[in-house]
């Protein structure tokens, strides 16, 4: 039971990170119907920028951890948002209205470019960061096995919940969210009604990138080590999460992220860690076979 509880906590933490990345995928898919393959790489860039910011602050003599974290969060979110905007402007906007596979190929191209860009500019070796947040609560202790909830995990889960709440408000109540939902339903009609479609799409990318940067910072804090390749696996998992939850649905992305995180952690905890990715992908395939539009997605009605 204790073991189960511990795995549950770990799974929810991991799932929160996946969920935040998955929102970027699902939003972009909802609004322009393309797989933003480079999103995993944007996450990686975000975590690198967070790492660089924290290290720069330490080098400047600011050693207070909360200040460093908040500063890193702000810097990583804003700079990664610029990256997201630039990627959309350079690689996707010229191809809007082109055939379906074209932006997918540029996305793969951007993904390869970013990976190698970071590899060249930051070096190929993995970057360890000494643990910033130590300690935590011991929830229960039996027979020498302690269930612990570390402060880092609390931080991750709380931040995710806050961001999700803020984000739901953004989509549900603000003019920007309205414009976004309008573009999602019918881009041409939205444009006729005076919605600036290009700007809305750009903002979607900006928001997605900012959330990915938050996930990047959390990944860095939780695991304490990153390299230029983390984006690929995390990106695929997050995309799996988005599809699992029903692509285009925001609560679905979060739910999918949690499910993928839990499956991965439980599989690794109870069976073998070698095949944890196989488990996650198999669940994806099985869910899609029986529920082709994901857990919370609307079934697509095809018009002739």
């Amino acid at each position: 039971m204790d073991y189960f509880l511990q795995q549950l906590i770990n799974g929810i933490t991991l799932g929160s990170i996946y969920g935040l990345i998955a929102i970027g995928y699902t939003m972009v898919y909802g609004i322009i119907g393309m797989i933003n393959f480079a999103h995993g790489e944007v996450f990686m860039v975000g975590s690198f920028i967070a790492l660089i910011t924290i290290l720069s602050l330490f080098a400047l003599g600011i050693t207070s951890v909360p200040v460093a974290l908040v500063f890193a969060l702000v810097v990583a979110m804003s700079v990664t948002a610029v990256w997201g905007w630039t990627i959309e402007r350079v690689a996707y906007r010229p191809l809007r209205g082109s055939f379906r596979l074209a932006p997918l190929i540029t996305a793969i191209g951007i993904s390869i470019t970013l990976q190698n860009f970071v590899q060249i500019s930051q070096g190929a070796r993995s970057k360890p960061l000494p643990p910033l947040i130590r300690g935590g609560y011991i929830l229960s202790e039996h027979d020498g096995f302690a269930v612990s909830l570390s402060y880092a995990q609390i931080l991750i889960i709380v931040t995710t919940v806050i961001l999700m709440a803020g984000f739901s408000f953004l989509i549900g109540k603000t003019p920007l969210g309205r414009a976004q939902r309008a573009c999602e339903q019918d881009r041409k009609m939205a444009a006729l009604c005076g919605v600036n479609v290009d700007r809305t799409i750009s903002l979607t990318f900006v928001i997605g990138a900012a959330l990915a940067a938050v996930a990047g910072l959390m990944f860095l804090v939780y695991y304490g080590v990153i390299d230029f390749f983390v984006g690929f696996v995390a990106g695929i998992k997050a995309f799996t999460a988005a599809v699992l939850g029903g692509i285009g649905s925001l609560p679905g992305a979060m739910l999918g992220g949690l499910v993928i995180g839990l499956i991965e952690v439980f599989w690794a905890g109870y069976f073998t860690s070698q095949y944890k990715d196989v488990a996650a992908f198999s669940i994806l395939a099985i869910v899609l076979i029986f529920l082709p539009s994901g857990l919370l997605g609307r079934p697509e009605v095809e018009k002739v």
Partner: protein
Amino acid sequence: MAETAVDAPEPLLSTGAMRDAAITFGLCLILTVSLVGLKTDNLGEGQGITITTHLVTAVILAASVTAVRFLLGVLIWRNTAHGQSLASVIPGFVSLGRTLAIVFFLAGAVLAARSGLRTELIAKAAEVYPLFGNLVDLLTFGAMATFFIFLAMAAVHFVRITTAGTAKGKSGASKISSASGFISGLGHEFPVALLLVALILPILVLGPQQRYAIDTATQILIYVMLGWGLNVVVGLAGLLDLGYVAFYAVGAYSYALLATQLGWSFWVCLPLAGLFSALWGITLGFPVLRLRGDYLAIVTLAFGEIVRIILQNWQSLTGGPNGISSIPRLSFFGLTFARSGDNTFSDYFGIEFDPIHRVVFLYYVILLLALATNFVTLRLRRLPIGRAWEALREDEIACRSLGINTVTTKLSAFAIGAMFGGFAGSFFASRQGFISPESFTFQESALVLAIVVLGGLGSQIGVVVAAVALVGSAERFRELQEYRMLIFGLAMVLIMIWRPRGLMSGRTPSAVLHEARTVSSEFVQQGRG
């Protein structure tokens, strides 16, 4: 087109252009300072990392990107933005390609006439700056290739003209020998000429670089074959498959295991490997039948990853990350390409041993396999099943309402595509002599898909051109190491923006009522993928 000409010319350095440049510079500065200007350096084992500043590099990078954008904006975009095409703005832009081809042709002729000239030029350029050597190498190679392909095209054209009288009435091909002549007919002769050059390639590249050139060509042909195989799935049937490398892996491991465990020969294992891959294609295809578009893409990607992870972890069968080594090499009807021993190729034919024999033999084997793939695909396109694939690509609902069985159509596309992938895989295994899961990552799938899409979906010759461009240039710039992949990624983006429908984007319907007409990409409505 009538209204476009009256725009008053803007001043070259308008405030708009300046503002645009300033914004670009600011943006680039944010992007470069964040990742280039501040560099994390590892201090050594277990000692953490430190940060160093490279601000000058970052500023230079940002400035150069801005400069390129500014020049493009002033010289090209400013003029083309008002609906004028590039051709009407820059006189001679249309003929630029033709001029370039002629220059390349003449240069190639000179290079071909004086055999030592090329190496001399490369060495001289490399003395100035190492990168220039590569560039000259690539350019001279391009020139020679142009020369030989043009020569072959001319030869094919000549043969067509002289046999036109006898062939008249038999085929439509004789029509192109009319006065409109050479240039317009080239489109038809390009594939044949390419084939001719491919057939005599080992003779064309005699010299110190022969082995390297043939190895590169073999590498390219493996990707051509993979591209043709994937083209069946993506280009013809319109099923987006991001896990194609799984079938390549299945083929490679089938051959490696059968050959090392049972000692069967390549030619016995080849059909078996193809069969296994096809079975895998059906097995993986079956669950995803109901999925469409992007769901299909992600599930195939997941399958590709699952296959790789299983190969990596099933130690007892696949050797795990260490892979399988000492896979038997291909033999020529039982004659091996060894220096000594029984039944060697060189002994049997009474010629001196030369490692190049094996390289050339492998080249012809993959050429044969690739041509077989192409031939089978072209014939399949004329069969009902091939037409069903294309119909499925255009409209699945219409397909179903016309009584096409979409299940068998999709599964057959998966199976045939997978089979070709399996053939390529077993050839790869026997050529390398060693395989490991590292050769079958998602990057490979992405590369093959890029070849198919950049070449132009469904275009067989486009796959060849894209494979030569991508794999060939990646091979030439091997010394640049990680910069190579960076350039590769950027090239993918730029080519796609430049030509969203691929390099060879004509779509020839395989079933026609009266006469076949190639629909150029300009006339195919965008968005009808």
